[in-house]
Structure formats: C-alpha cells, structure tokens
C-alpha cells in the first residue's frame, strides 16, 4: 500500500494500520500545501478499500482498481470545483487526468466552485447501499471551493453518513474551511515534503539528473507539483525576472521599475508572477543563510543563484531589513490570491522594498 506516494511516512503508517484493522473514521479532512500527496493518498485509499485481490492491496490489476484508475467505478466519486457551464465530458476528462497523475495540478482555471447542485446530487446518490458491494469513497478535492450553501448542506451528511460511505475532503489551507465542517472530520495534516524526498522522487519517477533535481527540490517549497511544474516549464525565465527585480530596486530610476512592473503584468499569468515572487523570497532567504553562516558561500541553502552582484547587494542589508523584505513579498503573494490588480501590487511591492532599503543606504 502507498508505494507510489512520495514521503509522508507517518501518514502511510497511520492509514495502513487503520485500513488493516478496519477502524476508518467516517470522514477525513486532508490539509496541507499543494503537491504533498493529499489526492494521491485519497485515491490509494479508495483503491485499497475496493480492491478484489486478497493479499496485495491495491493490486492495480483487478477490475475494481482498473475502474477506479479510469474514474469509472460506481462506488468511488471524485468531486472537484468546476464552472457552472462545464460539460460532464470535460469534467470527466479532468478527473481522469488527475487520477493518472495525482501530483499534477489539474483544475479548471478561473472562478470555479463546488455548487449546491453537486452536493445535492451527492446526497441523493449517497442514500443507496454500495453498488459493487464494498466501500463507497467520496473524495471532495479543494473542499474550500464549496459555496457556503453547499458547505452547509453537506453538514448533515458528514455528521451522520450512511454506513458504508467514507468521505475524504482535501484542502490546501485549513483556515478556508468553515469550522462546522472541520469539526465533523478527522483532520490529517500533510506537511511539506522534505527536499531530499522531492529530489529522490524526481530522480526516481521523472528520471531527472541529479544536479537538476537538487536545484529544483531546493526551490519547490516542499511541493512535488511545484517541482514537476518547474521541471516542465524550466525556471530560467522566472529566475531572470526575480534577479532583475532585485537588481532594479537598488536603482534610482523609477521609470525602469514601472517598465518592469508592466512587463511582468503583461505575462498575464498570476501563477507565473507568484512563482517569480516566491523565487525572490528564496533569494532573499539565501542571503540570510549567507550572513548567518559567516558569509561562507558553501552553506547557502537554496543554491539557485550564481549572480554575485545580487548576492553582494542583498548581503549588504542587515537582518532586520531582509526580514521586512521577506514579509513584503509574502504580503504581495497573499494579495495576488485576493484578486487585487496585479500592476498595483508589483509597483507597491517595489516601492515598499525601496523604502526599506533607502532607510539603510
């Protein structure tokens, strides 16, 4: 069980015991940042509970496992946020994409939700006993995307679920889920994966060479989805943007940073901008380590930059200022999530960082 899941030793142990001794709770809430294996776990549990093989569960060979792997099992349901106008076929294809690679970020981009309509259908179908006879598993991915009505409507079902129905809700941020749902589920925390776990998985699963795996695992922030995304898209361009930003904040020319902000906004991709900011953050953090470790370069934690200029500039700042910059960036990432006008966020970020620096220099 759980052979293909990266890291998360404790959770593996926990569920192996619980499944073997048949002491599952009626509902679990998996929480932790994206790419830590929440959905992968949920699928594996669904397969294990329905597998027809007696010794080796899940076998991934029996008809039940095959049905689940094709999202065609009548007792296993995967609910994800969708557009109100998404067709059944589109939804089905997304689900299949997800189960084929549970670590991949598969979702409809935009203003999606899990509507009360979906929850109503779920309630109607959950009234019945299992179709193929074993355990029904309903996975609600990104449960925070349930509308308030939907969330309230599912409460009763979560509280008194039918006998053979297991709920698994997954969320990236526990704070986004209403407390009445939280209190009805057994919480399972998925901590970020360690760098080593990500590095080894990259080498083993995706056949990445060691050097690259090292670099990517350093900036992945504990998320395997992020790591494989960086791997696919390459981090070159994002890194360039990040380094450029650090460069221009020390210049006095405001025209340049307005141009820069515009260039970044023209990417028209929130995820891209967020990644750029995250990389800046890592660069700044690098500088921290650099300072702490008596400026010996060998101990830099995130070895992603070789640009000595930037190193020099960041190192010139004191700890306090580095920390302030760090929190400014965190704030900006937060604002992007809140759908604030991107151009303003970036200009604001640069101005704020400049303010911090100017106090010093």
């Amino acid at each position: 069980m759980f052979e293909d899941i990266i890291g998360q030793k404790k959770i593996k142990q926990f569920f192996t015991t619980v499944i073997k001794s048949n002491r599952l709770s009626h509902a679990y809430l998996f929480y932790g940042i994206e790419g830590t294996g929440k959905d992968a776990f949920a699928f594996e549990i669904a397969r294990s509970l329905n597998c027809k093989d007696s010794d080796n569960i899940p076998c991934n060979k029996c008809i039940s496992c095959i049905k689940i792997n094709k999202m065609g099992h009548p007792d296993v349901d995967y609910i994800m946020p969708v557009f109100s106008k998404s067709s059944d076929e589109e939804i089905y294809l997304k689900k299949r994409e997800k189960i084929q690679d549970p670590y991949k970020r598969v979702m409809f981009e935009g203003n999606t939700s899990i509507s009360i309509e979906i929850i109503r259908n779920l309630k109607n179908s959950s009234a019945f006993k299992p179709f193929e006879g074993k355990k029904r598993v309903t996975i609600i991915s990104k449960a925070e995307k349930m509308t308030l009505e939907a969330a309230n409507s599912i409460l009763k079902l979560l509280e008194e679920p039918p006998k053979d129905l297991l709920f698994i809700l997954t969320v990236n941020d526990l704070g986004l889920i209403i407390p009445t749902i939280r209190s009805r589920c057994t919480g399972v925390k998925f901590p970020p994966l360690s760098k080593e776990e990500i590095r080894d998985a990259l080498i083993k699963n995706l056949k990445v060479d060691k050097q690259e795996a090292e670099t990517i695992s350093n900036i992945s922030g504990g998320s395997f989805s992020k790591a494989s995304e960086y791997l696919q898209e390459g981090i070159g361009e994002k890194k360039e943007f990040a380094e450029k930003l650090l460069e221009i904040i020390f210049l006095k020319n405001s025209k340049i940073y307005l141009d820069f902000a515009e260039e970044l906004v023209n990417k028209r991709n929130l995820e891209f901008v967020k990644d750029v900011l995250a990389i800046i953050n890592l660069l700044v953090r690098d500088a921290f380590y650099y300072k702490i470790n008596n400026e010996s370069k060998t101990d830099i934690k995130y070895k992603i930059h070789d640009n000595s200029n930037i190193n020099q500039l960041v190192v010139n700042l004191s700890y306090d200022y580095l920390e302030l910059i760090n929190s400014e960036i965190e704030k900006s990432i937060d604002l992007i999530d809140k759908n604030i006008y991107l151009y303003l966020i970036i200009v604001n970020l640069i101005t704020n960082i400049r303010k911090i620096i100017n106090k010093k220099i």
Partner: protein
Amino acid sequence: MRFSVKSSDLRNVLLSVINVVPAKTTLPILGNVLLSLKDNKLCLSATDLEVTIRTFVEVKTDKEGGVALPGKIIGDIIRQLPDVTLDITVDENYRANIKTDIGEYVISGENESEFPSVPKADIKHEIDVESDVLERIISKALFAISMDGVKSSIMGVYLQFLKNEFRAVSTDGHRLVRVINKNVKIKEDIGGYITSPKALGQFLKNRSEGGTVKLSISDNYLMFNFDNFVVYSRLIEGMYPDYEKVIPKDNKNRLMVDRNMMESSVKRILVFANKVTQQIKLKLSENSVEISSEDVDYGKEGREKITADYNGEEMTIGYNAGYLLDILGHIDTEKVVFDFGSSTSAGLAYPSEQRENEDILMLVMPIKLID
C-alpha cells in the same frame, strides 16, 4: 463476439433496456448498454446506478463475448431499421460492425468489464408474488413517497415481508399509505427493505399481466425476476420510520361519501384555492360535507355542499387539495370512507369495501386553520 438477430426481435428488448440509460451522467460508461453473449442468449443490461435492468433475447452465434455499446446510437438505429436481419461482429478493440441487407454501420464501444456490474451476492431471501398482486400493491403506494431529498430513507417505498403478509408503505411526512396483502406465502418475518421508486417504475413498465415475480433479496439489492427481465433495485440505506405509531387508532367520526362526487367537487374548489398552499376546507355536519376554499390575494372563493353519510361531531378541517385528490384517485371503490379524529389530528381514508386479504389505508395530515 459475433451473432445475428432479427431487428424485430431485438427492438423491444433493446428499447426497454435503453430506457434506463441516464441522459446526463458524470460516469460516461453509464451511457452504454452492455451486451454479453453466452449459450445463444444475448443478455442486455443498463444501469443508472439506482436501478439496473437486464433482459435476454435468443440469437444465433458462433463466437461468444461481450461489449458495452453507446445506448443512444444503437437505440436510434434500431428504431429506424425496418424488419431485417442484423449480423453483428465485435472485434478485440470493441468496435462493433452491424451488417444488414440495406447497409453497414460501425460504432466503437467499451470493454465489457469496465461496465458497473451488480455483484453476484448471496441471496438471503426469495419470495414468489403474483405479478398482478405486486403491481396493485406498488401502484397504490408509489405516489406518496417523499421527493424533497431531505430525508433519504423515506424517498423509497418500504416493502415489508412479514409472515404471510406483504406490506408496502410510503410516506412523505404529510401523508402515508399502507397497503397490506395477506395472501402472499412468506414462511417467516424477514423484515423490510427501502426500495428505489425508479426500480418499481421499471417493474411496472416492463411486466406483463399474469405470471409470478420472484423477489430476491441480498445485502444491497432487491431483485425482481419476471418474464424475461431482472430489475435490480439498489436498496436505500437507513431506518424506515415506525409508521404504525402515527396511525391513529381511535378516530371516531366516520364519513362515507361518493368517491367521484367528492373528487370532482374538490377539483372545482381547488380552482379557487391559493395556488401555493392548495388549501381547502371540509366542513362536516350531519349528512353533508361543505367543501370550500378562498384566496384572499386574488379575491376568489368557492363553496360546494355534497351529501354524505356523517353522524360525528361537527368540525372544520383544512387539507391540501392535492393530497386529497391523490387519495381519491388511488381508491377504486365507488364510495370512500374517512375516519376523522379532530381538526388538528391525522385523518384516515379507506375504500368502503376492502378486497379479500387486502387492507389499504391512507393517512393525511390536516393544515392548521387560523381563524
């Protein structure tokens, strides 16, 4: 898999199976009809996960096998075909080739093993019921089930098997129907099962008159075996409410009234009732009932008086006219009997004469009247 069959032989069985194929589903495989071929018998089945239907047709074959084919496409073509012989071949990639005298059609299907299959579970109980008896019981009870989706256990019909007594009960919280037949051979009490209304509907639709139905019960299913069909109802989980408790035992005010007269009167008075509440009033006095309604919003009201046998207390009771009409429509004697308690307690209705070995009871809650 290869077989040949006359289109006229295939048409009816195929169409009755396709009836179950859901129009809209999140599980695309359900859009298919499963064909499996063994011993010169072609077994067709379809499911919407709530009800599964299976039926057979004799065919000529020289190669057995199975495939799931898109229900809509084969349904549409079989409807349009004249009486011809179909030669159907399915290759290992699940592509079906249908050859007839007038042309050739190709569709791709799916692996038969990916189709949701009702497991061959242990049958715990088997009961034989006459098809006509079962039809009568179900069609009397089916109308009162709950549709609002709030409480799942009352969204089906409760079929209860007691010793030599077969019961069907349905309720939506405002009304209740209990039909008992004491002429069904059941050796011992085996309890009750909440059955999907869709499955009952499929039984009613596909059954033919006469004959026997074998009811088989497993952990998760209740199966209806009749004629050439097997209909599987997935059972609804949960406890059915203790319905005997809500049936009043001492309703002393008996009203006997002509069913047709009352039905047409209620229909007329309903025109003048509030559209949302459908509230009408029955004013009971000696040997007459006054049926009235009013809708203050639209300034309309109606009033009719019909003669009836009544010797009880004088009282006025409010009812939902829709519920009364459902009751009157499902009682088939010339006269109908009501037993009232008070203007705020449950009223009972029965046919004026019960058939032999049969007991039909309907209960309806009044609407509280505000003076």
